[in-house]
């Protein structure tokens, strides 16, 4: 396999100012992209330019700045529509992030429909954000959470989805990529199975969007959610894509300005899609920054990024498995962007501190996916997650630092 990036990696790294910043006196090796990716100058500049040249509230004023802000905000919505290949901007709702998007669907789509004895289906590898909102609506309605198992490699067999669907299943929530294990799930196949039984599907795309091109029509998702900050964009902004026919039937989740057409004390008429779900002043500059992030990743090319990250994953898997006493957690045939692992005699939390001392940032713990981590009978793992700017040399740094940590605890 060729180990040459399909784009100018040095130039891409130069786009991210923070990568030049030393940490604890060492060059930063940032391998925590699964938690939050860094931002290129293009995103930082877009937000700054918006604040300096165009800011006002959206959808409200007749003055010039309000129109500019509205154009920037709605331009970003159209940018997201193209990114996901949604049919219409009416299907693109701005939220605070993946978590809020899932809560919106749980409260507005699921809760009014659920009756005691109904079922919500999730998989064993979900992030807490794709477990807890469903548990909350189950608690409120008497519905039940049903879990699709994973195998010892951390994979979900679509057949297991088929057998867990019952006549009471009302919705399936499934990750596109596991944040704790790196598994890429066959979501199109899973969605086809669910749809065959008449079950709509929410796909948690938080860990998928930085690594691959997404086409919500091709995969036939009913809801697809992601966050800006894992995609080299700002924090505090995220997306809910929803099939228009479903969104149209859903009641608003929060009430306030912008989501109404007419208000009197007797009766309020709600605004049309997508505004019905965007109460209050939105995170306008965040949306602008997200649009710039999408421009940025598409300029490099998500296929190119995915290709390079596959090389990184291959190399990291090979380097790390060569370390005595190291076990990789999550060995799915199809993985994206990250390696989770444990090392004999070195607790992941100690490893995190020791690596930080070398300027290497990784995530340690249960990665907000306790059931997935507990499945592997470990209390926690160390996780190195890659970005478009990650180099093979950084993987070498990681491997050498892990070996040194093992020496310290010998």
């Amino acid at each position: 396999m060729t180990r040459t990036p399909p784009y100018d990696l040095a130039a891409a790294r130069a786009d991210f100012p923070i990568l030049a910043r030393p940490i604890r006196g060492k060059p930063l090796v940032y391998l925590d992209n699964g938690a939050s990716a860094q931002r290129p100058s293009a995103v930082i500049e877009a937000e700054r330019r918006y604040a300096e040249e165009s800011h006002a509230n959206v959808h409200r004023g007749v003055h010039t700045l309000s129109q500019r802000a509205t154009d920037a905000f709605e331009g970003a919505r159209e940018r997201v529509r193209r990114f996901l290949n949604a049919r219409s901007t009416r299907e693109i709702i701005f939220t605070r992030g993946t978590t809020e998007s899932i809560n919106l669907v749980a409260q507005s789509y699921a809760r009014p429909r659920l009756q005691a004895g109904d079922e919500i289906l999730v998989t064993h590898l979900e992030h807490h954000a794709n477990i807890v909102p469903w548990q909350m609506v189950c608690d409120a309605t008497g519905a039940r959470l049903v879990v699709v198992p994973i195998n010892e490699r951390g994979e979900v067999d679509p057949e297991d989805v088929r057998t867990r669907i019952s006549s009471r299943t009302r919705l399936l929530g499934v990750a596109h990529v596991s944040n704790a294990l790196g598994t890429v799930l066959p979501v199109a196949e899973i969605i086809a199975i669910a749809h065959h039984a008449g079950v709509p599907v929410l796909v948690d795309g938080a860990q998928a969007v930085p690594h691959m091109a997404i086409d919500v029509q091709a995969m036939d998702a009913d809801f697809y959610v992601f966050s800006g900050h894992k995609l080299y964009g700002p924090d505090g902004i995220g997306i809910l894509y929803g099939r228009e026919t479903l969104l149209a039937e859903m009641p608003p989740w929060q009430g306030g300005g912008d989501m109404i057409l007419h208000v009197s004390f007797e009766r309020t008429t709600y605004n049309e899609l997508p505004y019905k779900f965007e109460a209050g002043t939105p995170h306008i500059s965040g949306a602008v920054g997200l649009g710039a992030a999408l421009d940025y990743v598409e300029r490099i090319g998500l296929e190119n990024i995915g290709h390079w990250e596959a090389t990184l994953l291959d190399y990291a898997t090979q380097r790390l498995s060569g370390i005595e006493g190291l076990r990789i957690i999550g060995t799915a045939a199809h993985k994206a962007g990250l390696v989770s692992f444990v090392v004999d005699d070195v607790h992941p939390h100690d490893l995190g501190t020791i690596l930080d001392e070398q300027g290497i940032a990784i995530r340690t713990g249960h990665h907000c996916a306790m059931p997935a981590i507990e499945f592997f009978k470990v209390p926690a793992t160390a996780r190195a997650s890659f970005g478009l700017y990650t180099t093979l040399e950084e993987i070498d740094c990681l491997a050498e630092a892990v070996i040194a940590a093992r020496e310290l605890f010998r």
Partner: protein
Amino acid sequence: MDLKDLYRDVILDHNKRPRNLGTLAPPAIGAKGHNPLCGDQLTVYVSLDHGQITDVKFEGSGCAISMASASLMTEAVKGLDTEAFARLHASIHDVLTRHDAEVPAALGKLAALGGVREYPSRVKCASLAWRTLEAAIAGAVSVTTE
């Protein structure tokens, strides 16, 4: 900063060979402690006789800092009365959290925990066993005062 200041030999030794690992049967009191950030979980057992700690043991799993701190604690508190434990706990808390705190010579081996204060994300690891023993004693007190 040097990692060896955090992972001093005493810490590494107590992590590798924890002292007083195990359980105590009732009437000894047990309390569970959990540090959700890193998944440290331990149970501390304490036997009290007229307000004096006659025996203490712990079991669980966690990072080197939490394990070593628990092990060092069990060695240090045996024989103390609950008031002396409270004073020692306060003194350890200072050492773990205050940059300007002197590390009293009386702390002996416990002084090895002094490196933790340079690593704010690890303070909870080091304090877990102490807070858990505090809870066990409080439980014992509430039980005995019923």
